[in-house]
């Protein structure tokens, strides 16, 4: 009886270890995993509550076993449709609860489907503001509200950035200043007001969404722009072929970005719902 139990327990232990090892092996990681680097995810247009959103959330969770990211930035459209408590649960909390249980914080920005009241929601860490700044290591993050860029917000961005001596400056918001999307395309109005401020104040990288696909834009005026808007919805085949803006694009599955910033380099890797890597690379910090 005792022998039988030992054999059975040993078998289960071997099975558990080999399964875990296999799972981790299958999680291909191209990032350097440097000591003391800033590690985070970038996701967007997540709030559909769909089966696909949950499947991607599971891959995000799996990747934490090999890439222990501390937080997640959200580029808007956090909640499609209604915003009753049940919607918060279905479209956000239930999907990402296993990740939040590992003490990972989410920092949201607002999309055109989001009510302003989301700024008061505890788990979005917006501290009651539609636009805000937070810092992780040497990196300053600016969450902006691209739905309503009035004089008040633009003055705030200018004031904050001009006095910001952080080594890295990253902005994230919903509407993409550059995009090869057939449905929406570049948000020219937003670009015209924010890009001169970004250039003047040394913003290195911008993350946006709105388009339901992934796109890495060819660097524009020294800034690296990404679209990571396929976190919960997909616009299959929507990237315009031969767009002069596109460095790399992927519009065949949902995706999220793993990002690591170490010293003067930002590394990124883009993962789909099936765990496939569809883009990876590095971005040097801008000369100032």
């Amino acid at each position, binding site marked *: 009886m005792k022998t039988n139990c030992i054999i059975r327990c040993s078998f289960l232990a071997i099975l558990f270890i080999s399964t875990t090892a296999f799972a981790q092996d299958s999680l291909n990681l191209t990032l350097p995993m440097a000591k003391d680097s800033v590690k985070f995810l970038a996701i967007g247009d997540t709030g559909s509550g769909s089966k696909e959103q949950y499947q991607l959330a599971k891959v995000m969770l799996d990747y934490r076993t090999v890439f222990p990211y501390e937080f997640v930035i959200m580029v808007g459209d956090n909640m499609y*449709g*209604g*915003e*009753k*408590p049940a*919607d*918060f*649960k279905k479209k956000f909390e239930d999907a990402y609860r296993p990740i939040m249980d590992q003490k990972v914080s989410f920092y949201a920005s607002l999309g*055109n*489907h989001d*009510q*302003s*009241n989301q700024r*008061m*929601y*505890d788990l979005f860490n917006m*501290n*009651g503001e539609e636009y805000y700044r937070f810092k992780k290591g040497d990196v300053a993050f600016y969450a902006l509200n*691209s*739905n*309503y*860029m*009035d*004089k*008040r917000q*633009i003055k705030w961005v200018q004031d904050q950035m001009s006095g910001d001596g952080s080594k890295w400056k990253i902005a994230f918001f*919903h*509407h993409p200043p550059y995009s090869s999307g057939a449905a929406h395309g570049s*948000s*020219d*109005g*937003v670009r*015209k*007001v924010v890009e001169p401020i970004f250039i003047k104040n040394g913003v290195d990288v911008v993350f946006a969404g709105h388009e339901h696909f992934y796109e890495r834009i060819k660097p524009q005026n020294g800034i690296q722009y990404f679209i990571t808007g396929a976190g919960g919805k997909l616009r299959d085949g929507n990237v315009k072929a031969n767009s002069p803006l596109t460095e790399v694009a992927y519009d065949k599955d949902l995706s999220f970005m793993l990002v690591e910033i170490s010293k003067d380099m930002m590394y990124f890797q883009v993962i789909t719902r099936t765990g496939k890597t569809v883009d990876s690379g590095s971005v040097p910090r801008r000369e100032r």
Partner: protein
Amino acid sequence: MKYLAIFAAIIFTGSFAAAQLNLTEDDLKILADFEMRVDRYTEMREIVRRQIPTLPKDATPEQILVNKTHLRDGVQKARVNARQGDLFTQSATAVIRSIIKQEFKGFKGNEIRKTVLEADQKGVPLLVNVPYPETKELVEMSPALLFALPQLPKQLRYRYIGRSLAILDRDNGLIIDFMKDALP
């Protein structure tokens, strides 16, 4: 006195913009009156807000819903006689329409028009003191247009609803007023 100060401030700070937008002194007076009406609404909704429990900055979805509902109900009750044109008076509508028209010239206008008309706003009621449905998309506002229009207090937002320009309360979702034919 306060409104004279507002008018003076508009003339002082807005002289460059006014010149760019071809606004006359009469136009500026009309816009000062519009801002006074906006302020009157804001003061009233702040009185209502102070009567309900404060929403913490780390609220739960339940607290957000309760706060929104109380603020909406309180303002609806306080504005039971509100009518279209309370803020967008006839004269204000004319001035604002001329500002919009100038901002819509050329390529920029086509872009804004495309964004507005593409939005999913079917079934949004164009009625004063009625909530904008939270299931419907909010059309992003062109920053250039926001720079040209009179600045609203942070509690209020300009929003396009089809071809109409509305003012929405960001916290209770109510349509405070609207003007028609605002999309050239």
